[in-house]
């Protein structure tokens, strides 16, 4: 999982690389969940720079301006895990080298519009598809994303019957004959 604090042990394990960041606190619900501002992700298979590139690349593919890097880092975490497979790792390494090469050596150093121009150019290629297909699951399937976008997730397990299933008030109430009784509420 995403560690919320940077530990010395984190620098010594895995590939030796750790992706780190600080919560920007732009998303209030996520900020409330977080025990602290710093976050870190240990990488097992990818280099730190590869992790950086993949995080930026994911931000270009699924740009949510106020969504924390810490959520995008969960995509990098899954891509890092997928890189335990040698063929996947070499595909991603080659894809990143290709992105850097077409950017004149260092895609990360470019400004955002220029970075995006190169992202558009690699759309559909193996690296892009791997990141997109991983991110469309990982980015939206975690508690921080649920809070950010306003989805209840497993909070719904107990049921919304007494917790707002019909709390919308900006439209007229449907007539009783189109609806039905609320269990536990008389009348």
């Amino acid at each position, binding site marked *: 999982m995403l560690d919320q604090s940077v530990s010395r042990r984190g620098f010594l394990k895995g590939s030796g690389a750790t992706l780190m960041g600080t919560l920007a606190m732009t998303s209030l619900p996520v900020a409330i969940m977080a025990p602290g501002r710093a976050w870190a992700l240990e990488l097992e298979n990818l280099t730190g720079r590869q992790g950086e590139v993949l995080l930026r690349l994911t931000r270009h*593919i*699924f*740009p*949510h301006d106020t969504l924390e890097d810490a959520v995008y880092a969960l995509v990098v975490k899954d891509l890092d895990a997928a890189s335990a497979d040698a063929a996947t790792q070499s595909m991603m390494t080659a894809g990143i080298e290709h992105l850097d090469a077409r950017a004149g050596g260092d895609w990360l150093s470019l400004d955002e519009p220029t970075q995006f121009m190169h992202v558009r150019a690699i*759309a559909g290629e193996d690296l892009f598809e791997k990141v*997109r297909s991983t991110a*469309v*699951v990982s*980015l*939206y*399937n975690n508690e921080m*994303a*649920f809070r950010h*976008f*306003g*989805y*209840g*997730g*497993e909070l*719904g*397990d*107990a*049921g*919304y*019957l007494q*917790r*707002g*299933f*019909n*709390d*919308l008030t*900006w*439209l*007229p*109430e*449907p007539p009783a*004959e*189109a*609806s*039905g*009784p*609320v*269990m536990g509420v008389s009348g």
Partner: protein
Amino acid sequence: MMESYENKTSFAHDDDSVVVIIGSGAGGGTLADELTQKGIDVVILEAGKLHKRSDFIADEWGSFAQLAWLDNRTTSGTWRVSRDFPNLPSWICKTVGGSTTHWAGASLRFQPHEFRVRTEYGEISGANLLDWPLTYDELEPYYTRAEDKMGVTRTNGRPGLPGNNNFKVMHAGATALGYKQVHTGNMAINALPRDGRSGCLQRGFCFQGCATGAKWSTLYVEIPRALATGHAELRPESHVARIEHNNAGKVTGVVYFDADGNEQRQAARAVAVAGNSIETPRMLLNSASSMFPDGLANSSGQVGRNYMRHMTGSVYAAFEEPVHMYKGTTMAGIIQDESIHDPSRGFAGGYEMETLSLGLPFMAAFLDPGAWGRDFTAAMDQYMHLAGMWLVGEDMPQERNRVTLHDSLKDQYGLPIPNVHFDDHPNDVAMRNHAFQRGIEVYEAAGAINTYRTPPYPSTHNLGTCRMSANARDGVCNAYGQTHDIDNLFISDGSQFTTGAAENPTLTIVSLAIRQAEFIAKQMVTRAI
């Protein structure tokens, strides 16, 4: 109180007095209950594991991994599902209870004219239309029994479910447009406690299995009841390979792989196949023999053909104010005004408009598969403000839309996997475009600021691949699901459907299973089988 799944009895593998039922979903699970209530011994072979209500997961992807049928399949044809989900043509379940674990609960009767569409619609080029060998009036008493069994809301004096936020949006837009038949649906979900099961707590995880049991499922209604009679044995993780027959052309037993991958053989007096409309024809085709070289019950050549999946699509719409569509039942309301046959709209048949909600994970996966960039993320940013509806209508049976055996790929047991070929008929396309437009108008009438047309999901309604026909040359089984070619072989799921109608199929599958059980019992008494 949690249901008991204890087998009170077990049958010897060479006991040829039992009826073997393959599949434990809407068709197979209901048939098992109905036969055992009459004292008939059955063995239920279910490919999936037993996941009880208490095992259900309030997590879309986690539940998908637990319940969905994920065995490899291939697809072909021009349907978009083949591009977006090439190895997932259908979204059904591999678990005890089958797809009644994940269904939304919509329980609508077919309309009388939908049993005779060849007569009503006339000849439609490219469509293999046929009237059912069964009328609405013949099925009507069984619809009533199924509704009572399942506790369908707004039928036979039962109240409706209370409308949730998603329904409020649909209702406001629909009534502003002048639609009249708008309500919280006919749902096999208890509004109030009934039949030993809870009322709905509005969890919003209908697709992930109903943990309270408020929604009818064979998993915790029909199957425990069948087991309690002492006339049923449930064997989960039993994947059927083929059905065997004797020299007289009668089926004699079923060969399957058990949980350990060992091949087993269960003898049978009769066999009822209810593996959903991809596995059912696959089993018949995989059972080809020298006597039946094209597969069992396939003298018509129609096994696997006329695969239908319903015309589907979804409309999502964003509003200034929040909606929170995920709170409460997934299918929370319906507009039925477009379900009529009115050719002036430019297509035959009709469609239903039903609210639908997806959680954030599935919204990302299904809103516009393959999409990326600002248009996509702008839609996702509005998640809390989205309302949604599913469009479901009658699609045209076509001979070339079919389930076939793959010529090289095999499954984990060495059996050829199925390929599912589908091309939309022009009638399906015209209906979808009309439905998208009307769905958008509903939401605009309620104040939508953005609307989204979402393409079909992998098929949840798989129908028609062993269809009923009056004449043996036109289909696979008769009006009781008995195959034309083999008297003691029955089709007991949606594969029987001659045509698809506009309505969700489960209520009709259950009604047909109740009727089939009576027929099988009579056939056994008279020793016709």
